[in-house]
């Protein structure tokens, strides 16, 4: 009898949550697309000397460079985080696991965008030990060792912010967790383009963040279909 009651409750719950989801996503939702580029002269990215960790140095021939600015042909910018910073009417927290990997003494991806409270896993796929040392301000800082063969570290971040991540053992290792307060975000690809999907009609402030060049914002109106938002950063040679 009791189980029946709970089953009914469960079904009701499912139905209502399904209704909520449909209500939050009207048929006419659109996308925001665009491209991130820069003008000016950016600093040159330097080759990384990994000779202190020969196992990793062997994996990169020729050596990889620093990734503060990842630019492509036509001054496009990769790994720019573009997100709705104001006007978002609440978003469902993501339940998928955001994965961050250490491979060849390098963080992959260099910038990981994920939602606040979204589960995250950090893997060490190197035959050497790393320590993962995120440096948040709003969230709590921690520093954990991950020797080779360790299981992934499970974590999540409560508050939205851009968190620099480093490995103290390998000082060249440097990356970011972009913790978002919205589900409407995207990272620019190798060609500098991005697409934010499933945006309900409305007026929004959209922000683009690049780790070296800071942020750019613009107002975007979405009325179904595709709204355009291009971002141009100004690069200084230092």
């Amino acid at each position, binding site marked *: 009898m009791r189980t029946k009651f709970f089953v009914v409750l469960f079904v009701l719950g499912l139905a209502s949550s399904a209704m909520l989801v449909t209500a939050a996503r009207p048929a006419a939702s659109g996308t925001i697309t665009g491209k991130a580029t820069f003008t000016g002269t950016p600093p040159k990215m330097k080759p990384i000397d990994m000779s*202190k960790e*020969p196992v990793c140095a062997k994996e990169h021939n020729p050596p990889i460079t620093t990734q503060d600015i990842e630019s492509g042909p036509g001054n496009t910018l990769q790994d720019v985080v573009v997100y709705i910073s104001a006007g978002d009417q609440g978003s469902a927290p993501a339940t998928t696991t955001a994965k961050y990997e250490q491979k060849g003494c390098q963080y992959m991806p260099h910038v990981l965008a994920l939602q606040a409270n979204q589960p995250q896993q950090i893997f060490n796929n190197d035959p*050497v*030990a790393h*320590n*993962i*040392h995120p*440096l948040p301000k709003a969230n*709590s*800082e*921690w*520093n*954990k*060792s*991950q*020797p080779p063969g*360790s*299981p992934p*570290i499970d974590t999540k971040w409560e508050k939205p912010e851009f968190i620099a991540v480093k490995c*103290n*053992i*390998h*000082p060249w290792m440097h990356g970011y967790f972009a913790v978002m307060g919205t589900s409407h975000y995207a990272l620019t690809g190798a060609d500098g383009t991005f697409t934010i999907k499933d945006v309900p009609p409305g007026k929004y402030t959209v922000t683009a963040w690049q780790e070296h060049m800071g942020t750019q914002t613009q107002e975007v109106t979405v009325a179904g279909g595709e709204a355009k938002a291009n971002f141009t950063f100004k690069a200084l040679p230092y």
Partner: protein
Amino acid sequence: MALSKKITRSLMLGAFGVALAIPGVAVAQDAGAHAAGLTGNAETGKQYYRRWCVGCHGKEGNGEGENAPYLDPKPRDFTEALFRWRSTPTGTLPTDQDLYDTITRGVVDTLMPTWRPLTPQTRVDLIAYIKTFSPKWQTQKAGTPITIPPEPPQTIDSVLHGRQLFDQMQCWKCHGPEGRGDGPSAITLTDDKGEPIRPYNFHDGTRFRCGETNQDLYKIFMTGLDGTPMPSFADSLKPQDAWDLVHFLRTLQPNVPSTSRTVWLDYVKTHQGQIKPMGADAQGQ
């Protein structure tokens, strides 16, 4: 005239009342403090802080007191609520007792003296005040202290296993294969503020900054020293293995007599040429 005098008087009385109320408001974020069986009061602690601590830690508690430019290492910045010597896991706030112990002990090799001359009540009041510098004390609870199982006997097996772990966990990357603080990554290390920081040299030191017992040593690598490059190994070391590592680390300290060091030195005498090198040498690098 009489009326205006009356008004002035009542205004003054009102102002006096407000002034009386202010001390309660002044330390708005008083989270209190409980340590050494005492309860601390932030308002009282503020008076002591202004007398004893402000010179280095600064009026705002940001570690930028008048003396700070001349100090190395820098005084702790309380506005970050990031503390090194904790009994709690990495990423959590320390207990009030942890902070009390730090004040009481002082910090070896720095300008932070022991504050035993202050009464326990004064020290707890100071903790209550220090906790008003960061809003984190309002929104978060202190972490749960880690559980330290009873220490097993200091045998050669324990020491040898600890030595193996020192190699596997790659402690030598910073602390060096002999624990001299001269590993390959040592010179690149900085703390969270970007200040250069050295890994502990087991050969020189006698005491650790967080205390001198084997339990204190156990806590260092199982909680990590937040704000420094020293990570927590709680996810990678089992409690029993952690004790073995403690026993091995004791063998690196010629200035600290221990059973571990004695059994290790005996072993070295009888096993000449059989002890494998550690670190980069072991990997032929």
